[in-house]
């Protein structure tokens, strides 16, 4: 249906919609995050859920204590190499559809600890990240912005066709390989199927 016609109809109190829109509208307004925090960003995440910033306005205040009930993983803080296997395993244990917000400099790139020996250089090396938030730590507004970006992403997803998201494609797996915490860091160092080193991409 034409968007202009829809707007015109809604002015007369007639709301036209599709199954897809209705479904996505319901989905995007009840994204339940998984309860876990890794570092100082978690404090900002907690503040976001409290009365002042009130993530409940977006339907996401129900932080679930079990990955079985969660749709969203907010990787809030430094992912150490010792913690990374657990984070990936938690992601694997979440049911589809699942989304990931990488919150803060550490979660997206390793941040100030990037050159350290024990910090993962971004969780997107092992799991697909939907929204990256820079900042050290990002303010609650930034998390809310990221959340709204995720909502936009969800509402734009198609139920059918080639462009449908991965959770609707039966051939794509729901689990990602969990790295081993070996003697010299994580093995493998990244999941090459989902992570493309930006330096190597630039070099061609």
């Amino acid at each position, binding site marked *: 249906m034409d968007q202009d016609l829809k707007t015109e109809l809604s002015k007369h109190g007639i709301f036209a919609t599709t199954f897809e829109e209705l479904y996505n509208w319901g989905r995007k307004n009840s994204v339940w995050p998984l309860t876990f925090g890794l570092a100082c960003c978690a404090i900002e995440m907690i503040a976001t859920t409290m009365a002042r910033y009130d993530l409940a306005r977006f339907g996401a205040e129900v932080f679930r204590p079990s990955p079985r009930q969660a749709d969203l993983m907010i990787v809030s803080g430094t992912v150490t190499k010792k913690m990374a296997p*657990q984070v990936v395993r938690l992601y694997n244990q979440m049911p589809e559809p699942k989304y990931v917000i990488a919150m803060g400099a550490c979660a997206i790139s390793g941040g100030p600890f990037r050159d350290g020996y024990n910090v993962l250089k971004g969780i997107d090396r092992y799991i697909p990240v939907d929204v990256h938030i820079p900042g050290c730590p990002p303010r609650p507004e930034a998390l809310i912005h990221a959340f709204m970006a995720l909502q936009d992403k969800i509402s734009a997803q198609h139920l059918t066709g080639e462009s449908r998201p991965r959770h*609707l494609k039966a051939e794509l797996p729901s*689990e990602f390989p969990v790295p081993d915490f070996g003697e010299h860091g994580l093995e493998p160092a990244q999941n090459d199927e989902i992570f493309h080193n930006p330096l190597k991409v630039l070099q061609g």
Partner: protein
Amino acid sequence: MGKSLPIAPVEHPWATIVALLVAAFVFGGIPLSLAWVWARLFSPPKPGVQKNAIYECGLEAKGDAWIQLNVSYYLYAIVFLIFDVEAVFLLPFAAAYSGLSLGACLAMLVFLLLLVEGLIWASQKGVLTWGS
């Protein structure tokens, strides 16, 4: 009076309850079946080894979830309960301590003595040591 009066159908006393019960099942069943049909049509199931594994906060589960606790633990629970109650009594005792008469103070000390005596008795019975 040629026509007889219309006879009201005799309703079974449980008819309303049965109707409500059916309505309740239908009311609950419709969304569930819709969700099931929707999942069948659009959302492919993707089980996996890790997805179905025991949730241990992200760690790999070690051992069995069906472990047994020694039954003698109940004695610890009882002794703990006694001293838990004692703490409840000690709090008002401490708060009112400066205004208490000698008799009340002695009564409290007797109460404490009884509990300590109980502990010594339990200890002598060998309750506080784990048996194999």
